[in-house]
């Protein structure tokens, strides 16, 4: 009988139920969309912040002080310490290896470069420039056999390249002075925009770099004194690197006779915004706190675990990048949660109003039921059951609409849709049920006080 009453109520006034259901579905769609986007946005934005480049920089601990002015390091090449390149795959073995998005080792060499003279043997114009040895789309072989491709184009994503990056040879061949070896991948280089303009060369041209330590550069053809490379691209960086030459790391190691080392490492890692806890010195923490600290991807705890796998390295947080990122992430997250809360509130009120209206208009029915001997409890239960049924159906439909909306927003803005999550579904159903019941509760209480007689008389 109970179910018949409920079913009858739906069958008798389908339009009315449809409208209440529609309000519910729309309200819950808003809630779902806002919730899904808010849940997802932290990760997406953290990725987005990587467009600011590396947030960690690794240097040798024993290194002498860099005398860096305007991006040029005035230390002599042989001063200071270096780090072994062979340790780098270990970066992807730390606890936070999935958070390490990219890294690129750097080895610099200040020297003179010149464009190929018109005539072999003729003097060329020598320009002081910095050679930057690094990786570009470099395949790193990890200990588990997989390949991780990384390089400067990922740690410094604001670089704009015309052409392509240099290649990497699997093994560095001994270099001859015949034309064939010039075409090998490790003989390629990328030129900074300003330097290219100064030298008057473009993609495809050959340039020469002085690699004989110390000697004044003379323009003559000598494979011992010159490193040759073919330009594969021109890069615009908006910084001091615009006057530099980018080469494969192995090549600069060859030039400086320092095989297998680098001097600086940029690491780009996904991090959690730092809070007061994260800023504490790990040395002052007790075991529990340390556990909690190292199990949160704070930039400082990632720096700490990198330090563990790179002996002799000093890992620093690039405060400019890390701090701004943390602040903005926190703000945006809070903002979206607020929008979500507002959406939930609006949805709840509108749905509540809708269900309240649907109870109010059923006074006659309630009066009749009471006249036939139904107690307030049964009447309330019946109406609540109807509303709940509506809530689950409406909530379910709303959830699907909301997921589609969240997907649209996610794809439009971040190029990736948020994953539908079960938690959101359950929260939405619970919310729908709660809101409809609350919305109906007030009118229901009044309904339970109705005297059947005046209602049936139509007063």
């Amino acid at each position, binding site marked *: 009988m109970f179910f018949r009453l409920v079913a009858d109520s739906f069958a008798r006034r389908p339009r009315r139920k449809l409208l209440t259901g529609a309000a519910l579905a729309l309200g819950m769609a808003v809630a779902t969309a806002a919730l899904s986007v808010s849940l997802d*946005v932290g990760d997406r*934005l953290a990725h987005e912040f990587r467009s600011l480049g590396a947030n960690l920089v690794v240097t040798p601990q024993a290194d002498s002080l860099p005398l860096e002015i305007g991006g040029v390091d005035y230390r002599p090449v042989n001063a200071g310490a270096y780090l072994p390149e062979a340790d780098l795959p270990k970066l992807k073995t730390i606890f936070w290896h999935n958070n390490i998005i990219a890294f690129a080792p750097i080895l610099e060499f200040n020297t003179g470069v010149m464009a190929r003279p018109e005539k072999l043997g003729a003097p060329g114009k020598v320009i002081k420039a910095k050679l930057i040895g690094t990786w570009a789309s470099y395949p790193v072989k990890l200990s588990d056999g997989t390949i991780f491709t990384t390089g400067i184009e990922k740690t410094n994503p*604001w670089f704009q390249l015309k052409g392509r990056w240099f290649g990497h040879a699997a093994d560095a061949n001994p270099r001859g002075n015949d034309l064939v070896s010039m075409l090998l991948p490790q003989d390629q280089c990328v030129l900074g925009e300003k330097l290219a303009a100064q030298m008057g060369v473009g993609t495809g041209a050959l340039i020469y770099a002085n690699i004989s330590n110390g000697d004044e550069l003379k323009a003559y053809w000598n494979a011992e004194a010159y490193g040759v490379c073919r330009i594969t691209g021109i890069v615009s960086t908006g910084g001091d690197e615009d006057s530099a030459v980018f080469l494969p790391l192995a090549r600069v190691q060859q030039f400086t006779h320092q095989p297998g080392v680098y001097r600086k490492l940029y690491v780009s890692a996904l991090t959690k915004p730092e809070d007061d806890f994260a800023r504490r010195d790990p040395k002052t923490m007790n075991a529990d706190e340390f556990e909690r600290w190292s199990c949160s991807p704070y930039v400082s705890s990632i720096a700490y675990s990198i330090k563990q796998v790179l002996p002799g390295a000093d890992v620093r947080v690039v405060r400019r990048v890390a701090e701004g990122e943390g602040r903005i992430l926190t703000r945006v997250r809070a903002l979206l949660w607020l929008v979500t809360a507002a959406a939930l509130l609006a949805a709840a*009120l509108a749905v509540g109003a809708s269900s309240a209206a649907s109870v109010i208009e059923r006074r006659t029915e309630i009066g009749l039921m009471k006249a036939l001997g139904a107690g307030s409890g049964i009447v309330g239960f019946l109406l609540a059951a109807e509303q709940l049924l509506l809530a689950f159906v409406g909530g379910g439909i709303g959830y699907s609409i909301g997921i589609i909306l969240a997907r649209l927003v996610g794809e439009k803005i971040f190029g990736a849709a948020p994953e539908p999550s079960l938690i959101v579904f359950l929260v939405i159903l619970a919310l729908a049920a709660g809101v409809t019941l609350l919305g109906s509760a007030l009118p229901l209480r009044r309904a339970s006080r109705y005297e059947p007689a005046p209602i049936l008389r139509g007063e």
Partner: protein
Amino acid sequence: MMTASHTSNRSMFWRIVRRLLTANLSRLFVILLALGAGAAVTAALLNLQIDAKRRLTNEFRSFGPNVIIAPRNSNDSTATLRPATISESLLDQLPLQEGNRPVPAAALLYTTANVTAYSDEGIHNTQLGSGLVVLTGFRVNSETRIFPYHVLNPNHGVILDAETCDVGERVASQFRLQFGGVLQWKVAGKEGECIVSELDSFGGAEDSQVFLPMESVQKLTDMPHQVSLLQLIVSGTPKQIEKYVASLQKQFPDVDVRPIRQFTEGEASIYNRISGLLTATVAIVLLLTGLCVMAAMTNIAIERKNDVGLMKAVGGSMRRVLRLFLVEAAVLGLAGGIVGAAAGILISIALGKAVFGVAAQPRLIVYPVAVALTVVVAILGAYPLRRLANIRPASVFRGEA
């Protein structure tokens, strides 16, 4: 006569509207609740959205400088032995940004010097080491912190009557310098010293520099009123920054004004994402809130069947009846909107405070927009009453349909 009937018609019209509104108070309350909630959310979100975008661009300040003013051809190291400089007066001539906001900036002058570090000022101090470091003369034009950094000795004391310097983390660790340590240098026959008052961690080139007052370094290098470069924090949307850089370059054609691409571009892409996200979320929420309120309104409107039947029975034309209900809806929308939007703006002020720490400024334009939107939604919600045009009064009174 004509006017009299017109007037009485009109007064009757409003009387009916009044009655329609007050006949069922609990229903009135429900409608106002739905409309008010919609208006509140609309006003709050619109206000927050306008405010949040502006505030976000301000938050980008925490990334530090994003524009550099440097001498022309400063990269051409072959040009001269003496490093190129620009006039320090530029720092004080920087034009205001849109909205009369000052641009926080720092002037920097670099030089290298051989320094010797001592543990403290006392007679029995120990020499900690010596070596080449970069000395940076530093002057800012505002209270705003230009470079984001961490102070490594947060609870340091005060040094009086002596020249103090802030040292970068690497310098400190190289010389094992602590608060109160002393750095001495000799450059071209000139001597100087400073007492370390702060150890800072930047995570950049600044970590290996010693920061001194601008005048000391200018005296040391014999370059009065000259600086190596200026670093500026220009805030605003990507377009505003571009415009400011262009106008700056126009105003000072002798120097090179260039944005730091790492930050300007990163900020631009992040700003676009976040503002797109906000706009999209707010638009969806507003749209669905409107639909939601409309569905609730429609629900309520349809139950007016009896009223429509009665009005038609006593000779009301459908047009007049409909007008009656639409006016009722508009009045409701106006009331709900006026109260709801005001509440919404108050809410957004509090919300702005919660997110950005500063109360969101109420935008006056938001208020009429939110009220108008609510009225439109209310009228649209009442529109399904048109379907009642083909109601036969008789069947309504018989209790059918």
